[in-house]
């Protein structure tokens, strides 16, 4: 069985004046340790798909099954647990907490765990070494460059050792050189066994992935 199975997924957003069909009857699966890029124009439903995959938005129709768990049949508390255990998010705008330091941002997911401060510290140091930020642990986020901030975001996504990394345009705000560096990190993570689903506009990054899925107007076209 595939790690991620998406069956007849439809997601609508209703506003005062209209209903937007962001995702329309999508069905596909993703295997464990697979690196999949989601391509498509703006408004094609890529980010919505990622949101639904991450347990942050209930689909209007259809289901998401991850590791044989029907995600949206879980209770609200259990969905939060699912996000914590299975998913690591990486966003285009990094989305770090501005008043926390690098190590505090990385250890954010651990603040609700049962790990002691010492155990947390050990884990954080290991992860920061992985993303080459061990010397900047005590810096505030606004003291870092864009590439460094994105590496902090990646470290935060990895701290709970999730099976799946969901990355929404992780290189969107970075220059090409830094983007390449970030993509190499993702590639290494995939080699280490992480399943990665990445939204990107940059078709050049297809080379890092095993497979690309193209969306248009909420539908699968490729």
């Amino acid at each position, binding site marked *: 069985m595939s790690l991620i199975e998406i069956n007849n997924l439809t997601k609508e957003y209703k506003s005062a004046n209209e209903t937007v069909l962001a995702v329309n009857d999508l069905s596909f699966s993703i295997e464990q340790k697979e690196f999949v890029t989601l391509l498509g124009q703006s408004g094609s439903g890529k980010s919505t798909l990622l*949101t639904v995959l991450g347990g942050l*938005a209930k689909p209007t129709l259809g289901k998401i099954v991850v590791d044989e768990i029907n995600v949206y049949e879980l209770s609200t508390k259990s969905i939060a647990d699912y996000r914590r255990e299975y998913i690591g998010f990486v966003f285009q705008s990094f989305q770090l*907490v501005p008043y926390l330091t690098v190590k505090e941002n990385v250890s954010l997911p651990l603040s609700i765990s049962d790990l002691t401060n010492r155990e947390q510290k050990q884990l954080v140091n290991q992860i920061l070494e992985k993303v080459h930020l061990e010397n900047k642990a005590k810096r505030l986020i606004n003291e870092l460059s864009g590439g460094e901030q994105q590496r902090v975001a990646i470290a935060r996504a990895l701290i709970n050792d999730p099976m799946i990394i969901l990355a929404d345009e992780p290189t969107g705000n970075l220059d090409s050189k830094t983007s390449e560096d970030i993509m190499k990190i993702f590639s290494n993570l995939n080699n280490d066994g992480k399943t990665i689903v990445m939204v990107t506009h940059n078709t050049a990054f297809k080379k890092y992935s095993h497979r690309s899925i193209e969306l248009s107007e909420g539908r699968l076209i490729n």
Partner: protein
Amino acid sequence: MKLYNISLQSLRRRKAKTIFLIIGLILSVASVVTLLTVSKNVNASIAANLDEFGANIIITPKSDDISINYSGLSINSVSYNNKELHTNDVEKIRTIKNKDNISIIAPKLLSVETINPSNPDKGGTGNKNVLVCGIRFNDEMRLKKWWNVNGKIPSEANEVIIGSEIRKKLGIKLNEQLKIRNKNFLISGILDETGSQEDAMIFMDIKESQILLDKKDKVSLIEVAALCYDCPIEEIVRQTSSVLAGANVTPIKQTIESKMTAIHRFEHFSFGISLVIMIISMLIVFTNVNASVTERTKEIGIFLAVGFRRYHIMQIILLEVLTASFFAGLIGYLTGTISARFIIPVLTMDESIKIVYDNSLLILSTGFSLALGFIASFYPVVRATKLDPTTAFRSL
């Protein structure tokens, strides 16, 4: 790192917002502490002043009366078994358990005397019967604050003050002589019209009157001003009755009730103002936290994305508010106490007033601040936890 670390770091590093929140709470707590401290002290001052504004207990000698009836007609009443009051009864009143609540004791010796005006040509001829009252002028002037004396208060034994009616009745003026029982007295002062029986009385020193009227150590009645703000007047009456076996001790209910009404009105006014301030402060805190939650939509989205449950988010925000509220409570208490120190002398018009501070206000003000912070932030915090992840996530 634990959740409380997130709250503390948020407070520590977002100083402007933290200070704004704390100032809002401090203003509220300080205002309420100031108001309560001022109210308590001003109430006590008002009560003390009111209590000294006229007597609220009258002590008279006990007597039994019997009505004489003949063939169904009421002929007369006769008093018998009359007790007397003495000067040393005044000192006995000062020995009761609630002696600290006794403000003024004003004994009086009353007698009707025939006055022979020194200059009969000036007004009326012949002898006049007038009521002569022996008093302690110091105590009486404290008790009867509405008295306005033209001239001076008697300082010598042979000086008297007369009521305005006496002046007209006898046709006499200030600094003229008046003969009572063949002894000359100087009219040192004339009482302005009071509209009471006092206008028709002559007042002299009580010791002089006891000698003159041959009633050594005797007293006709005693007026007492008791401080009844924080003790029941009935208890003072009971204690006084127990030390003065031969006396009727009567509280003047009307006087007491009107004083207490004035005091209670001030208390209610203070309470009303405190309530208004509390509501305004709650609105300030509510607005502050509500705006903070709106600003932190992205942050809440991050918390949701990394797997926080809703009550984790509630804990973070509530802990921030309660930490700020705790410190605001302490600082507010200090600020309020210091403010009261400067306001009370102004309101009581008494620079030397001894201010009474209530130490339990420290715990109350801190508790009040915590409660205020909690109540005012409850809705915004619940709103934060109910934030649709999609809404939060979209902002990411």
